[in-house]
């Protein structure tokens, strides 16, 4: 790329912007590839009554298992659910003060948070178009509140830019839009776009660029009050005397491009990240709890399924007590909806055909870590005027999430001190929980020096160490989907799989819901045929 010391030529600048534009396009393409995003949910399934006495065994009481159980029960099936944990919800889970969590390897954490404080180690947001999960949230009367995805006053931070000092999101976004629209205006006026844009449309384009980038009358992104209306001021306008605003100085384009901070300003662009987004009041785990209560007599907890066998007559699951082990027991039904994550299921003997086996066995699970940090006071609100949303950093914690409830309360607050995937999450998983917390404190204090004085206690969840998922979510690629996805979803004899992993909305609860609805709809059809 450009030499850091030389002012980049216009041509190299444009090619860099090409990289930026390209990365947005690439991101878009990736989004398309990885998951369609759009939910297929058009309402709960209308199954109709099965032959009297028809039974279904549901394995796993996560969102997928409980959607399946609830709809099958409502349709008139005899339903039994076996769940490894002593609670309902699976990855739908919140950790509160007083909770104890033991990860694989026996590392036990006692959550020291105050009453009312919590962290969502897994899912934390519900986009408005995830109408499937929102349907069940409403049906179960779980209260929602807004989730802030983009906070313009939060920070973006790079260890190698601006002397490691964090910059406000709004400044980076305003300056990036401003510089790019100035460049494009210049190109337009110099005739560089004559081939692509008609003379008449060029006038409109110029007006749009001026508007989009907050340019001045000369189509310049100048340091001035126009820019201040977007990026904020050094001193805000006020009332009475001495009320004149003072505009800040825009970050120069080369510095801005080289900082890499422009990567952070796409935070709310993706379809899944667009407002409105919601979170359950009191923690994401409220959904799982409410589901569990609604299905009370059907779910049998602390049952570790160790074998799944089908024959012409039905399906038998063999299970042992999750904690105590001991005697093997069995549960039998005519049909089975298995929502055990593929990572775990790959280790359970199950007589299905080779295509489904191969599909289960080829799906690795992603690494992810979250760290919750309780602070004595809400300094991000009191000192930095940050109310909810996230700050982004190029350090391994990748972000700091601010609590999106109890704003302005005088008391404590729990920050999401780290939320990462891939390499930094693998590295975090290899450390004991205390060290993950220590790291998160170290990284976070580069952005909020207040950490050092205000930290009280924390909890760290590395998803590869979670005993009942062995990872965050199924890690599909375009190739693996083409080769195996249909085989994973197809009914094999009396067994159908469901869950986040059997969806094209991976790592979202909407995937678990739509997968369950689709699986039981097909299963019911088979029962009736």
């Amino acid at each position, binding site marked *: 790329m450009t030499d850091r010391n030389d002012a980049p030529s216009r041509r190299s600048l444009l090619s860099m912007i090409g990289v930026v534009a390209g990365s947005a396009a690439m991101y878009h393409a990736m989004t398309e590839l990885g998951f369609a995003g759009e939910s297929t949910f058009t309402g709960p399934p209308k199954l109709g009554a099965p032959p009297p006495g028809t039974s279904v065994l549901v394995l796993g009481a996560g969102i997928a298992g409980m959607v399946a159980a609830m709809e099958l029960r409502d349709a008139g099936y005899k339903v039994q659910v076996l769940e*490894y944990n002593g609670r309902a919800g699976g990855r739908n889970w919140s950790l509160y003060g007083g909770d104890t969590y033991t990860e694989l390897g026996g590392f036990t954490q006692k959550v020291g948070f105050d009453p009312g404080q919590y962290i969502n180690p897994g899912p934390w947001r519900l986009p408005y178009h995830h109408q499937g999960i929102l349907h069940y949230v409403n049906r179960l009367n779980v209260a929602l509140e807004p989730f802030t995805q983009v906070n313009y006053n939060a920070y973006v931070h790079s260890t190698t830019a601006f002397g490691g000092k964090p910059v406000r999101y709004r400044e980076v976004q305003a300056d990036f839009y401003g510089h790019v629209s100035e460049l494009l205006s210049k190109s337009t006026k110099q005739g560089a776009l004559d081939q692509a844009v008609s003379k008449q449309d060029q006038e409109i384009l110029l007006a749009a660029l001026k508007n989009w980038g907050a340019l001045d009358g000369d189509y310049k992104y100048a340091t001035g009050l126009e820019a201040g209306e977007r990026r904020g001021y050094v001193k805000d306008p006020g009332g009475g005397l001495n009320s004149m605003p003072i505009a800040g100085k825009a970050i120069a384009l080369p510095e801005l491009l080289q900082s890499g901070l422009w990567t952070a300003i796409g935070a709310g662009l993706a379809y899944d990240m667009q407002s409105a987004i919601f979170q359950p009041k009191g923690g994401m785990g409220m959904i799982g709890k409410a589901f569990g209560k609604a299905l009370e007599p059907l779910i049998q907890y602390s049952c570790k399924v160790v074998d799944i066998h089908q024959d012409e007559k039905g399906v038998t699951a063999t299970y042992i007590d999750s904690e105590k082990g001991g005697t093997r027991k069995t549960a039998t039904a005519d049909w089975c909806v298995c929502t055990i994550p593929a990572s775990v299921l790959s280790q359970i003997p199950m007589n299905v055909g080779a295509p489904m086996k191969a599909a289960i066995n080829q799906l690795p699970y992603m690494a992810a870590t979250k760290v919750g940090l309780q602070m004595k006071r809400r300094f991000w609100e009191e000192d930095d005027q940050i109310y909810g949303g996230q700050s982004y950093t190029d350090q391994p914690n990748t972000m700091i999430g601010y609590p999106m409830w109890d704003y302005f309360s005088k008391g404590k607050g729990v920050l999401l001190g780290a939320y990462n995937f891939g390499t930094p999450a693998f590295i975090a998983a290899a450390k004991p929980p205390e060290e993950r917390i220590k790291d998160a404190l170290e990284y976070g204090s580069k952005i909020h020096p207040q950490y050092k004085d205000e930290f009280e206690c924390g909890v760290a969840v590395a998803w590869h160490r979670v005993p009942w998922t*062995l990872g965050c979510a199924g890690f599909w690629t375009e190739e693996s989907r083409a080769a195996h996805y249909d085989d994973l979803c197809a009914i094999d004899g009396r067994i159908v799989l469901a869950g986040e992993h059997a969806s094209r909305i991976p790592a979202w609860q909407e995937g678990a819901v739509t997968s369950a609805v689709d699986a039981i709809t097909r299963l019911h059809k088979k029962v009736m045929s």
Partner: protein
Amino acid sequence: MKRFAIAALLTTLAAAPALADSAGPAPKPAARGAAAISGFMAHFPFEGGQAVYEGVCQGCHMPGAVGAVGAGAYPALAKDENLETGAYPVLLILKGQKAMPGFSMQLDDKQIADVVNYVRTHFGNHYSDKVSVDDVKAMR
């Protein structure tokens, strides 16, 4: 090689934005220090078999390579007769198997050879024949 790695990275990243918030790490060849390991598919910064084991493998196989059991399990690599053939762990690390992801993009040939040689001679394993960097390269 570079080009392949990047192309592969793009396809494998596909699932990440479902949770990640930004378009991913900036194309900053000069990422240094802590930032160098923040990327989804960033190279693991560990040198030597023990460092790779403790920095990556023990996340699942646990300190002391004793493995762990919950609803699912991670096998112990201690006193593991399956390690007799050096090619077996190399293949697993490159391609993955069931719940073990492949690490071909995040570990280089030397790191893989080193960690395989380390595991095969520690934790009660005594397989002294060495896997070479070229052996790993040939299996990619």
